């Protein structure tokens, strides 16, 4: 099996955010909100770090 680096980021972020959302909040509505926040931060942080590395290289 081979996947792109970005697909790996999305899968990692999805699974991790689901577990964080369920375990770190008590109410279902807050679980969804926290899970979504974690997902956005994981993916956004990775994209931001990628651009920083690109800028350092160029």
């Amino acid at each position, binding site marked *: 099996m081979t996947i792109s680096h970005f697909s790996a980021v999305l899968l990692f972020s999805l699974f991790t955010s689901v577990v964080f959302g369920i*375990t770190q909040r008590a109410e279902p509505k807050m679980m969804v909100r926290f899970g979504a926040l974690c997902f956005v931060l994981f993916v956004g942080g990775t994209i931001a770090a990628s651009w920083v590395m690109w800028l350092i290289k160029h």
Partner: protein
Amino acid sequence: MATKVNYPLAAGDKGLVEESTSRVSPTTALIAGWLVPGAGHLLLGKWIRAILLMASVVGMFAIGIALKGKLYSPNTGEPLDMLGFAGDLGSGLLYGLARLLGWGQAPVLVAIADYGTKFIVVAGLLNIVAAVDAHSLASGRKHS
């Protein structure tokens, strides 16, 4: 599951105390959740959470294996390998099954396979977080 119950406390006290009424002991929930991802929540009747946790941990572990990630072994003498082994062990029976079937033994040669190694370790760590959450629910420390 938490309900309010009456206890004979001091005079003037209404005697309303929160107590866990779960019939599953916290230790059982913790160990079940560690051995089988989501089983702790399943024992506590949290079906949806159990399914989501199982899908996440098993999915992450399976993707890690499919990406040809490495399963760490005990007693290699390398501190980082020992940490990786501790993370892998968090997957409970999944780790034992993968070792029995000989998965994750090939050397890591490409970046994607290294991602697979990380997926396997993080799946174990997430399973530990989920098992501790089941323990907190069973003990009443987390109310719902």
